């Protein structure tokens, strides 16, 4: 078994359940009940994952938004992200947590560390490459996932959306708001501490809104909660 899990299919429902389960466990733990806008770094604290904001040099391929060091239980976030919006920073942390939950074999990582401490793993064997994210972005929603890396990115981003915008919170935040009005959506996004793209994608995934391709017009989706409730 490897520290990075082999690629597997997760349904949307399964990913959402994982995120909800995490929020529920936090709810039941003193000091950790989630509040909105959700500070994703508190979720990392809950999972005993350290977060460090630091300079991550661009390699030969492209800028690196964040990376996980599984053996150290550490998420490193590129400080450059702070030049973007708060919502983008939240999304990036939540995205990395998605990787941690869905794609890292945590038991294997801990066992590896124990073996290293006992001197059972040496030299190059003792190197586990960090799990890299070149962009914790909305881009993955806009393009088709073409390979396993794309799918992993999609899964992590979907997890992030479910974590930052669970249905019951969205139901609460949409009260008194018109989901077909961009101004209202921007206000909701601010309330939730997410980017407008994150919110738009989430509402479309839920079938609450529908925006035709290349259009700015928002239509209520078939699953949209009644505006009168």
């Amino acid at each position, binding site marked *: 078994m490897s520290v990075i899990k082999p690629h597997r299919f997760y349904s949307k429902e399964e990913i959402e359940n994982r995120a909800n389960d995490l929020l529920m466990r936090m709810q039941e733990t003193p000091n*950790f009940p989630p509040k909105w806008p959700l*500070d994703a770094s*508190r979720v990392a604290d809950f999972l005993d994952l*350290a977060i*460090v*904001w630091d300079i991550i040099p661009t390699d030969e391929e492209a800028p690196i938004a964040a990376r996980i060091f599984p053996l150290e239980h550490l998420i490193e976030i590129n400080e450059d992200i702070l030049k973007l919006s708060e919502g983008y920073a939240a999304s990036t942390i939540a995205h990395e947590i998605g990787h941690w939950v869905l794609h890292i074999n945590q038991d294997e990582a801990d066992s590896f560390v124990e073996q290293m401490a006992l001197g059972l793993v040496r030299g190059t064997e003792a190197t586990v490459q960090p799990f890299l994210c070149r962009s914790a972005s909305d881009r993955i929603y806009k393009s088709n996932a073409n390979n396993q890396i794309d799918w992993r990115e999609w899964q992590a981003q979907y997890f992030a959306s479910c974590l930052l915008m669970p249905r019951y919170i969205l139901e609460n935040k949409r009260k008194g708001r018109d989901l077909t009005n961009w101004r209202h959506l921007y206000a909701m996004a601010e309330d939730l501490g997410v980017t407008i793209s994150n919110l738009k994608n989430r509402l479309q995934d839920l079938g609450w809104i529908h925006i035709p391709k290349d259009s700015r017009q928002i239509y209520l989706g078939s699953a949209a909660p009644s505006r009168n409730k």
Partner: protein
Amino acid sequence: MQQSFGQLIRQARKNKGYSQRDLAKLIPVDFTYLSKLENNRAARPSEEFIRSLAPHLDLDEEELIFLAGRIPERDEDFLKKNYQAMPALFRRMQENPDFAQKVFQEATQPEDEEEQN
């Protein structure tokens, strides 16, 4: 295993229910600096910074200063006055754990207890 400065403040912050941003606002300092301190990636913090941090985490300021690898200024004066004896004292403590233990015990004993003895 003994905690490092970074590990100790991270654990204390979590125990208090603060996020890095929450705590950074109280001190105040940039939360990215705090994240580096917690992960032992920042330069040794100043005594002034540690004194502003400790009360928010219910940690002992002096102990935290030592853990960060610093000596409190007021102790520094004492050490300077007695600098010639210090290497021998530290060496003896390192070589003789029983002696070190006795010194630490006496150092942490309340003063009124010392008087009774």
